[in-house]
């Protein structure tokens, strides 16, 4: 069993028979892809990492901390450093682009809302979006790429140390997939000590 220090994300099933298939051990820093993550394991992993509560079935390490030994205060502090990026951006349907992007900061760090616009514009334009138009539209008026991008910008503003991202390329055309592939690099350029973990979908073998 590895030491927790220097580990961004560790998940090790406690049952002997599950250890081989379900073990996940990711070193801190850089971009990582976890291949072929099934929906069931993804749900288990996400709840383990985002809830940070002791679990009976697995040992969980997040940003070097064992989650079964966390005080509520430490848990809240650690949770603030983790972000999840869903495949569809995870936007709220009745809020426009700007309101969606500014939402977490409005709750957790309202002082940063002032002077936020240039940062948001720069990030959106870096990935080829018409920022003014995107920020004024509701999610239902956005393309899938725009939703993913808005979710990504929202995540970046929180400056997390660990990002768990669902398969960002799913459902996109080749050009957009190319831009989405730059998400991790742009995040790491902004936050060199961060870790970007992409949970790739199980390949579709039906066709």
């Amino acid at each position: 069993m590895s030491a927790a220090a220097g580990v961004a994300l560790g998940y090790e099933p406690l049952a002997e028979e599950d250890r081989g298939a379900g073990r996940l051990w990711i070193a801190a820093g850089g971009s990582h892809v976890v291949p072929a993550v099934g929906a069931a394991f993804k749900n288990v992993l996400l709840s383990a990492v985002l809830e940070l509560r002791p679990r009976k079935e697995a040992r969980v390490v997040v940003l070097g901390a064992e989650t079964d030994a966390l005080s509520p205060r430490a848990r809240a502090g650690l949770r603030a450093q983790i972000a999840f990026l869903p495949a569809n951006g995870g936007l709220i349907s009745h809020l426009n682009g700007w309101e969606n992007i500014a939402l977490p900061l409005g709750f957790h760090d309202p002082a940063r809302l002032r002077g936020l616009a240039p940062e948001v514009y720069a990030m959106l334009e870096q990935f080829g979006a018409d920022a003014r138009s995107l920020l004024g539209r509701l999610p239902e008026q956005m393309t899938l790429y725009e939703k993913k991008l808005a979710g990504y910008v929202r995540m970046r503003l929180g400056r997390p140390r660990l990002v768990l991202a669902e398969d960002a390329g799913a459902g996109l055309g080749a050009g957009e997939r190319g831009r989405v592939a730059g998400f991790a690099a742009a995040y790491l350029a902004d936050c060199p000590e961060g870790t970007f973990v992409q949970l790739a979908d199980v390949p579709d073998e039906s066709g």
Partner: protein
Amino acid sequence: MIGVYRELEGSMRLAAHVLRRFWVLKLPPVAEELARQIYFTGASATATIVIRGALVGTLIIAYVIEVLNADVNLAVKMLLWVVLREIGPLIAAVLVIQRSGTAVATELALMKISGEIASLRRLRIDPQDFLVVPRVVGIALANTALTVYVQFIAVGGGMVLSALVIDASLGEMAGSFFLLASPLDLVYSMAKSLLFGAAIGVIACYYGLNPPGDSINAVPKAAISAVTQATLAVMLLNIMFAYLVYGSALFGLFTALQ
């Protein structure tokens, strides 16, 4: 029975959450939600709700005057006791249930089913802080404002109509009205409206956040439950108010006999 208890307990918990976390209204996203809710329930609905409310209020007065063969004194008492204290808050509440209660329950149930509530939690945002607190406060405030509009127009309309029917001058009617009315009447009806609005908001949010299933079919069921239970709650609150304030469940008889 257990289901009823669970729903009652859930609604009470939600109401307690609103009281406990009132301060979140100062956060920019929550303040925006509050403004949106007040605009939707109050401002954008003003014309339709006030016209319908005022028509019903005026109609009631017309019937009462005709049936009881009322004089100026009785007509004014009717306007004060029936329209100002009772019908105004009730009509506004019923119309707000129809419009905003259904909208809130439907919206929240859809958000729950589509995973947006879970998205909020993943952003470390308590859905009750962001969605429930501003909706409950917004509906309570907007319902109070709508009640005042309805009362103003219904009393005004009732006075004009009464003056025509019972052959009394409008000035005479207005004089009698302001002689009988006291600021307490307005405070009483506004306190009731505030409570009615808060109850409508809490119940609509409760059923919206707890739809009976994960499929799209659960959305209309949540809306129907919200409307039914909110109407029941408003009626019960009205009876409780009458009993607490006037010491008699049969509000109206007590004051009418004076």
